[in-house]
């Protein structure tokens, strides 16, 4: 059996693989959302006054906002008072090293295939693991510290590097940016913080693994990546959640800052629980991700493979402020059964000679709805801005939908903006051709879909690419024939 087939075999025998939960003792906030809860979270995390004030300000702003309805998705409204905004595995004291972490917590991550044990870790990836609301462990911290790189949980950054957090928090995604960003700003519990000093090339992939475990808990993580001038970092994010009947809310904010000549690659493989075949349960994934190419010649590249969640609402964006800066967005979004995805990007060209590239590959199966929504904006000052967008949709079966909503706003006549879109169906002919060579239908679909998404998968670091391929095959299992 070839390795690919073995993997597929493994996957096709299961439904959603990470649909288990663990009963650990948790430290939880009471249900509901009000100023008291926010004070409770802030106190729990022993935060400084400025951060509490920031949260409260965000909360007040959020209260005055309306939930957006423009996305091409439908779902029952979230009752924010029935959610829990903080849940942490109970640890008797704060762990100082990996050895002190509750073995049960480590076991959870082992089950996900993420070993936090540094000795056993594959070379080249440092992991920050976030369970429900808090960061459990960060590996390779020492190695990175020698280079001046900070890679730790957000809470820790607030304590250890308050000046950095204060400077950049909310600088790319303002607290009032949108409904869910405001909510996140008010209640975010933890996340990852990453700082690459000037001129440093981060020698390993930095990775955060998010898992929601507790029931009725919203996960609101906050990620902040700061790449100073002439630095480089590649950052990976993975997500899973247990299988539950109720919908769970995930509203994260990711901010990226890139200084002059700095480059940040951000890759996501999102595999939140998508709900069952009838659309019961699943994660609502309402995420704001944005990066600013603040310095000249800087570059931010988003790569995402979206396979999970019941409803996805997400537009990783780039503000191209520095002259000659580059923004890239590579996306594969797969929807099956009753899943809905409204995802895409925004490229805001402000600086001169700025370039952006958008490659979006949607795959719809079952009764799912898959929308690409993208905005390319060229401001007055942005002479010689270039954009190339390619939006492809692949349909499987005749009950799903694919939609494309491109918005283009050009204020400088020297701009060159190209948009290409295709829609295709997986052909019976292609499948039969594979069958005739001895390839089973499931494997044929996996092969064809991976070929279709290749341009995006090629952008992922090797290990992630393998995981993404497996996920694509799994997500589409049983959608043909």
């Amino acid at each position, binding site marked *: *059996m070839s390795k690919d*087939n073995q993997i597929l075999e493994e996957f096709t025998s299961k439904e959603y693989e990470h649909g288990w939960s663990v009963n650990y003792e948790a430290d939880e906030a009471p249900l509901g959302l009000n100023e008291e809860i926010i004070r409770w979270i802030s106190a729990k995390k022993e935060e400084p006054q400025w951060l509490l004030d920031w949260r409260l300000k965000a909360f007040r702003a959020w209260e005055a906002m309306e939930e957006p309805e423009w996305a091409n998705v439908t779902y029952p409204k979230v009752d924010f008072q029935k959610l829990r905004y903080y849940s942490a595995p109970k640890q008797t004291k704060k762990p100082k090293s990996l050895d002190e972490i509750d073995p049960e917590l480590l076991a959870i991550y082992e089950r996900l295939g993420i070993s936090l044990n540094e000795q056993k870790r594959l070379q080249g990836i440092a992991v920050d693991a976030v369970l429900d609301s808090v960061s459990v462990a960060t590996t390779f911290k020492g190695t990175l510290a020698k280079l001046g790189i900070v890679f730790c949980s957000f809470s820790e950054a607030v304590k250890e590097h308050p000046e950095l957090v204060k400077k950049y928090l909310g600088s790319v995604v303002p607290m009032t940016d949108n409904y869910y960003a405001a909510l996140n700003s008010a209640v975010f519990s933890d996340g990852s913080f990453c700082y690459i000093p000037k001129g440093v090339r981060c020698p390993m992939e930095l990775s955060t693994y998010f898992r929601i475990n507790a029931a009725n808990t919203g996960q609101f993580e906050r990620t902040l990546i700061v790449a100073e001038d002439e630095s480089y970092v590649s950052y990976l994010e993975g997500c899973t959640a247990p299988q539950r009947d109720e919908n769970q809310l995930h509203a994260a904010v990711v901010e990226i800052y890139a200084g002059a000549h700095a480059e940040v690659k951000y890759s996501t493989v999102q595999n939140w629980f998508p709900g069952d075949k009838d659309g019961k349960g699943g994660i609502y994934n309402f995420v704001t991700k944005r990066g600013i190419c603040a310095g000249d010649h800087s570059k931010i590249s988003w790569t995402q493979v979206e396979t999970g969640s019941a409803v996805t609402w997400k537009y990783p964006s780039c503000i191209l402020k520095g002259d000659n800066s580059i923004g890239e967005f590579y996306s594969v979004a797969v929807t099956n059964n009753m899943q809905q995805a409204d995802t895409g990007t925004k490229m805001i060209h402000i600086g001169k000679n700025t370039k952006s590239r958008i490659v979006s590959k949607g795959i719809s199966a079952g009764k799912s709805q898959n929308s690409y929504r993208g905005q390319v904006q060229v401001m007055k000052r942005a002479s010689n801005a270039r954009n190339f967008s390619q939006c492809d949709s692949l349909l499987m079966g005749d009950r799903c939908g694919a939609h494309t909503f491109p918005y283009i706003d050009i204020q400088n006549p020297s701009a060159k903006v190209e948009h290409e879109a295709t829609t295709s169906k997986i052909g019976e002919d292609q499948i039969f051709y594979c*069958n005739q060579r*001895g390839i*089973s239908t499931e494997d044929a679909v996996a092969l*064809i879909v991976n*070929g*279709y998404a290749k*341009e995006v998968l090629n952008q992922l670091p090797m290990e992630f690419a393998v995981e993404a391929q497996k996920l694509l095959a799994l997500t589409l299992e049983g959608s043909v024939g």
Partner: protein
Amino acid sequence: MLTIKNLHAAVEGTPILRGINLEVKPGEVHAIMGPNGSGKSTLASVLAGREEYEVTEGEVIFKGKDLLDLAPEDRAREGVFLAFQYPVEIPGVSSTNFLRTALNQVREYRGQEPLDAVKFLSLMKEKMKLVEIDQKLLSRSLNEGFSGGEKKRNEIFQMAMLEPTLSILDETDSGLDIDALRIVSNGVNKLKSPDTATIVVTHYQRLLEYIVPDFVHVLYKGQIVKSGTKDLALELEAKGYDWIKEEVDAAV
């Protein structure tokens, strides 16, 4: 090796094959000829298991097994190979990757160990010579942007890699210039062995100058109306199909 008995097949309710009988033994080459619309390609597709074709009557026994009972991929794994008239394109999937997936699934079915990358590549190198195919072509997306000749050559290359017992060439000569025809035919001839058989579906006698058949059958209105040796193909080339049509239509 292959026994076709009274095979009837229809597409969307329209009968195309109306009682085909054919016996193919190991080591033999059979040519199926006939005018347009006589059912030649349908026969090839039915044997390979294409879903749109409904078998309404008859049976096909391949190496002692009921072929019609097997899924298309299992027929392939049992050793039936169809060289397509119109090979499909699969963007983003290299020929190499495609073939490795195919070969290892076939090997698994046959209880053989999968080939690792090194062994696979050396096998590929060996077979590439047979059809004079360039490695560069094989690292490109399968059939995407290939010329007609490259597609057909790639089909024969796949055949060489998968080592089938029964190869069905469906109008492999269409769209080939003389040089490509020679290369493709040479490949097929080199792959011939006393244990394998070939069915060549073609319009023209031209291909049969290169791949010399032991038997030639003429298909008309879904039946084999005449069988003979390679001389029959020459006669068809000289006289066309009309005399056969007249013979058959007069008999009805």
